[in-house]
């Protein structure tokens, strides 16, 4: 296997894709978004779950099908988006976008993105950027309808 392929499919990505976190929509939730990747037809739905005060996002649950990259990305997103204020969620989405559009120039902000920086390698594969972005775009979209 080439090192390029290994830098795309890092072990942590393959792990998350095989045993994804947060998969399966949890009842309730304050806002939802379904996104389609037009290139492959794969779909992903995310749901934002508020905390008791209804001002923070306690967690994100999701469902859908897609490639290893898209599934791992949703799973990694789930791990990142725990107990955050809406603007903190937005900051993480922005950081992710910066990394994934960098064409291999950015390693990602580990402080904000945690293990999701393992997706940095995807940014060199134009055709896969949409796969990795699907969950993040869905959360961004749902966030607009999250009413604290």
């Amino acid at each position: 296997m080439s090192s390029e392929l290994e830098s795309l499919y890092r072990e942590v990505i393959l792990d998350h894709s095989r045993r994804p976190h947060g998969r399966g929509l949890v009842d309730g939730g304050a806002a939802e978004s379904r996104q389609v990747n037009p290139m492959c037809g794969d779909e992903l739905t995310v749901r934002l779950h508020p905390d008791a005060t209804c001002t923070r996002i306690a967690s994100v649950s999701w469902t859908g099908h897609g490639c290893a990259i898209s599934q791992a990305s949703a799973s990694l997103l789930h791990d990142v988006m725990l107990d955050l204020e809406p603007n903190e969620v937005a900051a993480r989405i922005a950081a992710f976008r910066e990394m994934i559009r960098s064409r291999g120039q950015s390693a990602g902000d580990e402080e904000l993105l945690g293990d999701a920086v393992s997706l940095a390698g995807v940014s060199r594969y134009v055709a896969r950027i949409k796969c990795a972005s699907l969950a993040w775009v869905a959360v961004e979209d749902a966030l607009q309808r999250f009413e604290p």
Partner: protein
Amino acid sequence: MSVQEQLPDVRQHPKSVEPLGLAEVERLRADFPILAERVNGHPLSYLDSAATSQRPLHVLDAEREFLLQANAAVHRGAHTLAAEATEQFEAARATVARFVGAQVNELVWTSNATEALNLVAYGISNASLGRGGAAAAPFRIGPGDEIVVTEMEHHANLVPWQELAARTGATLRAIGLADDGTLRMDDAVEMIGERTRLVCVTAASNVLGTINPVEEIVALAAAVSAIVVLDACQSVPHRATDFAALGVDFAAFSGHKMLGPTGIGALYGRAELLAALPPFLTGGSMITTVTLQEAEYLPPPQRFEAGTQRVSQAIALAAAVRYLDSVGVERIHEWERSLGQRLVVGLEGIAGVRVLGPQSGIDRAGLVAFEVDGVHSHDVGQFLDDRGIAVRVGHHCAQPLHRRYRITSSTRASLYLYNTPDEVDAFLDSVHDVRAFFGADR
């Protein structure tokens, strides 16, 4: 035609009556320099010709030569270049028409097969709005009328008919598929009836590889005077074609899938039908007289060729056809058939791989789509690409087909005259390794 005859032969290799063999294929490959490229450190194995083919130097050279010597607007100018360009352009039409069993006035240039199918759909739509006068009346459709497609159609031969149905109030119905990837002919017999005005079907599936019984469908449609529209994208490049003999009313194909350029395709239409169909795109070069309020239109094919045409592309496509002819399209077909069987047999032997469509031993187009248990097609494709193997992944513009088989996507390897058994074997070896890499075998 006589101009045609004067053109230099495009190929050095003399046409043989022997089956196409590896030695000749190796020689042919030299005409396609891109096949010698390296991808990710591996020699390129291009197994994506059903999406778009590569082009031999002869095709590139024919276009360039035209552009450097005779480039001008056609059907318009009086000057020498314009006359020369017009002659070459019309000679190209004659070449391509002959290749598919059409008269020159039965072959309309379009951008691609998709536009050719849309041309028919909009022509019918315009007739239904009263355009084209009495001659076009037989094309009028409306509520109560039915358009029959199949569940295996490429979106190009499905969505235009959905939109036509929505514009006119007609009903769209679809012939179902059997588990083995063939059309359910019982469905077809039941569905094609009194109300059927159009039957739109593909000659060969770009996913399943199924070769459809076009003659049978033509017979069913003829019995109820329905128009048959054939999507010939996956047949014209790969096997000898005679639309007139086949008895279809319209047929569409694309240049880029048959060694020719992008930006050009063609619609075949039976002379009487084309003559009665109202115009689709309108503008220059397709009219006789224009006043401020109305226009009179030229007869086909010009009636359907509005504005400046894809002149150099037509000339290049004719060069592609001459190339195919010089190798012999039936010899190509045989070569692809045997390679195709090698593909299917090989895939059937790999654990966790499910081949879509006809199983080995059954006649099919030289392409195979398959599912790898536990690995998404896009990941399969990425893995193969890492070894220089180019395949197509996704829904291949056939979402209803995939839904029918309860999947959303598949991986497809497709062949053309320049592929070799070694490429097939290397591909099979790599598919063999896919599940282990993604841990799907655990």
